[in-house]
């Protein structure tokens, strides 16, 4: 790593007050970014600014504050459109997060259009959020769920996908980047093959949004869901992108305010997209602040993000893989800055607690991917996931701590 790069990371770290604290008497090392990333001051400032200056309900008010709040809310929609290069801002629907986005598609699209014997394809490395919504739809419609198997290195093979893809396939929903393993899946190819078979393609982009430049027009995905809190933004806000024609063909997901045009006891007509899918007062403040997170990523640029994260991943592999009993779970050729692992003879929970005692935050457990853990015949892993503000020095400290902990277990 060159000097200029380390200076930049140092500057980036200054924007995250949460990182500058002691946990259990040690400087915090935050390696749980795949669960939730930290928020820079520009995001928290935007949140505070909104509540202190512009707080009002959106879209219906005639007064100044309502106008300001509405503008700020819709500005985030435009920022999200730009972020994923969607064709139109109306194709951006605000949700609580990725989970709600997938459920929305499952209930408002799949439940309406799928029938008995139709097939849905997912991969074996999906988060529960991209499994259970489809299982519910299968129960409701009689459709069948097919699963692309995962290879020992944590990849899926396109030929396995092709085996499952038939003229009965109506929908394919795959994770872009696995939260448990870090595997980057060949989603563009999967989408193209799904379309060739006449199926609709959805992408779970929760882990991809903070790491990869996503261009929905280039990917040609029909739906994409992602979350604010995994990309330096607030919790409780996410985006569902959908192609206009598909969104227009769908029925509303929830009923209430905002999503209607006219309501009478005899007949209610629905609003246009995206409002048709945004019933009730949305999470205005977090949506407004989410724009600052998008601009934060754009300001750094994916080139630098990628370079920094790959440097962290590389250092992690160099320092960790040699530790006594270290067993990486997920060694795909194309993977993001996630190292999921086990140490022979030491339970992940024990490691997680001992690392926390040294101020190091990692995730332990099944990471909401129980079928994947069953596939590897393990209960869970320890997962260290890196963000742009992490440093190689933190990785070194982590490796030394882990090494010492393991030695203690062996003694």
């Amino acid at each position, binding site marked *: 790593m060159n000097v200029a790069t380390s200076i930049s990371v140092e500057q980036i770290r200054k924007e995250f007050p949460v990182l500058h604290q002691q946990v259990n008497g040690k400087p915090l090392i935050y390696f749980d970014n795949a669960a939730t990333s930290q928020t820079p001051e520009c995001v928290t400032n935007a949140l505070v600014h909104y509540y202190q200056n512009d707080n009002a309900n959106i879209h219906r008010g005639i007064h100044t504050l309502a106008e300001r709040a509405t503008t700020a809310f819709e500005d985030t929609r435009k920022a999200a459109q730009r972020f994923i290069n969607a064709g139109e801002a109306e194709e951006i629907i605000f949700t609580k997060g990725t989970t709600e986005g997938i459920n929305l598609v499952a209930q408002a699209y799949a439940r309406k259009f799928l029938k008995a014997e139709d097939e849905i394809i997912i991969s074996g490395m999906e988060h529960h959020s991209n499994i259970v919504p489809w299982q519910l739809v299968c129960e409701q419609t009689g459709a069948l769920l097919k699963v692309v198997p995962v290879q020992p290195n944590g990849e899926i093979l396109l030929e396995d996908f092709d085996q499952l893809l038939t003229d009965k396939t109506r929908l394919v929903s795959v994770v872009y980047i696995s939260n448990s393993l870090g595997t980057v899946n060949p989603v563009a190819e999967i989408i193209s093959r799904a379309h060739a078979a006449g199926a609709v393609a959805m992408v779970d982009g929760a882990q991809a949004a903070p790491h990869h430049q996503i261009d929905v027009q280039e990917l040609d995905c029909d739906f994409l869901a992602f979350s604010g809190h995994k990309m330096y933004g607030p919790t409780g806000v996410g985006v569902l992108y959908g192609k206009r024609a598909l969104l227009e063909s769908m029925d509303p997901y929830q009923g209430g305010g905002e999503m209607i045009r006219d309501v009478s006891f005899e007949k209610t007509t629905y609003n246009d997209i995206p409002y048709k899918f945004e019933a009730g007062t949305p999470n205005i403040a977090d949506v407004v602040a989410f724009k600052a997170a998008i601009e934060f990523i754009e300001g750094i640029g994916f080139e630098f993000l990628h370079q920094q994260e790959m440097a962290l991943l590389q250092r992690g592999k160099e320092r960790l893989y040699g530790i006594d009993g270290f067993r990486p779970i997920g060694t795909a050729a194309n993977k993001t800055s996630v190292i999921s692992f086990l140490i022979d003879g030491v339970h992940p*929970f*024990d490691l997680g*607690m001992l690392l926390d*005692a*040294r101020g190091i935050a990692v995730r332990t*457990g099944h990471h909401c991917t129980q079928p994947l853990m069953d596939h590897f015949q393990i*209960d869970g892993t320890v997962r260290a996931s890196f963000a742009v503000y992490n440093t190689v020095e933190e990785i070194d400290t982590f490796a030394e701590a882990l090494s010492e902990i393991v030695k*203690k277990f062996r003694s």
Partner: protein
Amino acid sequence: MSIAEKEQEIVEEFSMLDGDMEMTINYIMELGEQLPDMPVDKKNDDHIVKGCQSKVWMAASANEAGQVIFQADSNTAVTKGLVSLLVRVLSKEAPEAILNTEITFPQQIGMNRFIGTQRSNGFGAMIKQMKLYALALSSKTQTDA
């Protein structure tokens, strides 16, 4: 030694660790290592304590004096240490004494702070299970009588 005295002993031991998280966790794991082995044939689903994040197995029997003898194990070292504390406090006690005891040492040593909310719930589940065993053994003793 009464239950209260055993609890007091634990409180004193932990106070010597001065609230240091790593030392505390290491001490808990050391205590777990000293827990007598649980027979493998008892480490099955019938003896799993429900409500714990880690796997915890627990069995109980009565000795000739009618006291409850607990056996326990866990798949994680820290949890094994935690359950060993309960075995130490409640084993070799009369069922009635176990049923009438309110365990206070976890609060006194500030256990929530170092094991977190979810594990604290699991710890509560272990205590509940031990009381259920005590109740079962106490009714059995009464029936036998």
